[in-house]
């Protein structure tokens, strides 16, 4: 869990005061500020043998919108308190950030400028989430904001980044261009999930400690920026878009591995150097209907800019191993949804190539199915979501994983939502989700929006 610097508390208070302070003076500036947000609690624990709390969070989200006819400012700030103490020694007793860890996140802060440059051009500048694609959260063409795996219940989240987005509307087309100045790496699954890091070694060697050094792209515009363009149009009753992205891969690849013998028994420490290679991505997506059934599809061709080798340095001699070929590879998602006459909603998606998969030979397949039934005018919703991960279609029994679970949401009054659910994980530990097979969870969440 990230600890915050002492100045973060000051920043949060400053922002909070700023939010509230904007209220009285803003009308005189010709804008209409609106303050909203939510209060949430999120408690999770592992049932069974590995029992214990895994999350105990209280979250306050504040949203500020200030509108004038041509400019809209939006900010979303989150203050998160975690009630799982990180105290380890008695000297930590006077550190309130360890006794009760907390952090502040400025999730988004941007300004929309409508029709200022040209009547049919909108501009958005600031820290923002840029959503591309038509699939239901599993968007393979969405490669502008980095992945955020901080919450496995919502693993398709992305991290909003500072960007300049320009939407141009010539006729029936929508042309979106995006420039992201600077590089932000993706966020991996929580370290509290107790999955030891690994590196493949010859069978006669045993991994000791695994360390790494991350080499971020040079902080120069030509090295660290990402650029994207997307053109949308409705054609033959379907919505189509074509996109192109150039930038660094958000997940690193080992370019060097130094093997350091520790003892004569074969124990070896490994020191990795991780880098983010460049790539180009061509994407296409569509959405529409076949009869009453909603359908969507996305495909993305990834063009690694160059072959990437891992330079393995060991006392026995150096050697190179191919880490990423420069051969293009394709990821895709197809899906559909339908609501039966009794109100039962079904959503199914098939994904080839997970967010972290790289290279033609390493693309896994996922099948995801969600079934939802609402009762009492949406006051009560029962949802079952299940997914199967197939790492190797030739060895489904040995290299696959399954995860998902039921969820019940009750919203008795406006703004209040209470959720109880569970996530069960099973499968081979060499797979993306199977590695977490000791991390089944039950969760209870309460949210009040205001």
């Amino acid at each position, binding site marked *: 869990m990230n600890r915050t610097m002492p100045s973060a508390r000051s920043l949060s208070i400053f922002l909070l005061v700023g939010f509230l302070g904007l209220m009285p003076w803003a009308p005189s500036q010709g804008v209409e500020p609106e303050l*909203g947000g939510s209060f949430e609690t999120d408690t999770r624990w592992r049932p069974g043998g590995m029992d214990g709390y895994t999350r105990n969070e209280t979250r306050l989200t504040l949203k500020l919108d200030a509108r004038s006819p041509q400019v809209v400012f939006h900010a979303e700030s989150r203050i998160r308190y975690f009630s799982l103490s990180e105290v380890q020694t008695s000297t930590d007793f006077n550190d309130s950030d360890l006794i009760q860890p907390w952090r502040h996140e400025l999730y988004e802060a941007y300004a929309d400028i409508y029709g200022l440059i040209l009547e049919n051009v909108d501009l958005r500048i600031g820290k923002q989430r840029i959503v591309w694609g*038509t699939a239901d959260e599993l968007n393979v063409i969405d490669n502008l904001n980095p992945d955020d795996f901080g919450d496995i219940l919502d693993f398709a989240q992305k991290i909003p980044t500072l960007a300049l987005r320009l939407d141009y*509307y010539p006729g029936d087309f929508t042309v979106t261009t995006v420039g992201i100045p600077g590089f932000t790496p993706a966020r991996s699954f929580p370290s509290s999930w107790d999955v030891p890091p690994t590196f493949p070694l010859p069978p006669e060697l045993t991994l000791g400690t695994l360390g790494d050094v991350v080499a971020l792209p040079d902080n120069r515009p030509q090295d660290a920026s990402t650029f994207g363009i997307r053109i949308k149009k409705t054609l033959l009753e379907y919505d189509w878009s074509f996109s192109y992205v150039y930038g660094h891969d958000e997940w690193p690849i080992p370019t060097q591995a130094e093997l350091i013998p520790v003892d004569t028994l074969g124990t070896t420490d490994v020191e990795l150097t991780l880098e983010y290679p460049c790539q180009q991505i061509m994407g296409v997506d569509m959405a529409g209907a076949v009869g*009453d059934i909603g359908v969507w599809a996305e495909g993305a061709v990834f063009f690694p800019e160059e072959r990437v080798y891992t330079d393995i340095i060991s006392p026995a001699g150096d050697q190179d191993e191919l880490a990423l070929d420069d051969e293009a590879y394709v990821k895709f998602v197809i899906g559909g949804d339908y609501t039966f*006459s009794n109100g039962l909603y079904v959503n199914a998606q098939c994904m080839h190539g997970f967010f972290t998969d790289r290279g033609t030979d390493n693309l896994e397949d996922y099948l995801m199915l969600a079934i939802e039934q609402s009762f009492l*005018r949406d006051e009560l919703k029962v949802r079952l979501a299940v997914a199967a991960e197939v790492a190797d279609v030739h060895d489904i029994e040995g290299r696959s994983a399954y995860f998902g679970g039921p969820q019940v949401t009750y919203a008795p009054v*406006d*703004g209040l939502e209470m959720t109880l659910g569970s996530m069960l994980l099973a499968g081979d530990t060499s797979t993306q989700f199977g590695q977490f097979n000791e991390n089944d969870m039950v969760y209870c969440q309460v949210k009040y929006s*205001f």
Partner: protein
Amino acid sequence: MYRKSCLLVLLLLGGGATLASASDPVQILQAVEDTLNAPVDREANLAMELIDAKGNTKTRELTILQKGSDKKLIRFLSPADVRGVGLLVLEDDVMYLYMPAFAKIRRIASHVKNENFMGTDFTYDDMAQSDYVEKYTPTIEDETDQHYVLKLAPKPDSEIDYSHLVMWVNRKTMLPDKVEFYDSSANLLKILTQTNVQRIEGYLTPTHLEMEDVQENHKTVMELDNVVHDQELPDKRFTQRYLKRF
């Protein structure tokens, strides 16, 4: 446009009854539709009250923009958890839903059209409905001094779950005072009543609507306010660009 203008003149002159005196059900239904869609465009605020069997209430506030019979943009203002949610309805039953929490516009296929719209007693199709003649075949059930009573049977190619509707058309206003909706088993499902008809900028506008689900004993009461007609809303207001602009 010419037809609507003529109809408006007829209505203003009390010509609605004259128009329908031929007792042609299609003509009557066309007159209803034309009256409903008479304004070139309309903007209004809606206050909804959702009342369950125990008398518990929930409220919804939204704005609605309509142009002609095939363009609508609906935006939720409250409560907080649905604030900013928008629905864009275009011709040929094309619908888009904007969910601010996901910052995403999603195309909605026709399977949701018969689902309740955001917990109300109106379905997505009820909210979008303004082309009765295209979707229903009317027959006259009864005629009273005040009403034409029409039975509307869905046309074979219209994707409507109701087995039929019964509509009480007010002879003076040519607006439906009451509509009964029957489920696929021909049992009474919902009753829509429209009252407090006001002439706003020359157009007859019901400002109090109640939709009651008699099977679930649930009701949605809707009040129209700040109704503005004929602002010459441009077509671009009914695009995805404006759907996400809130």
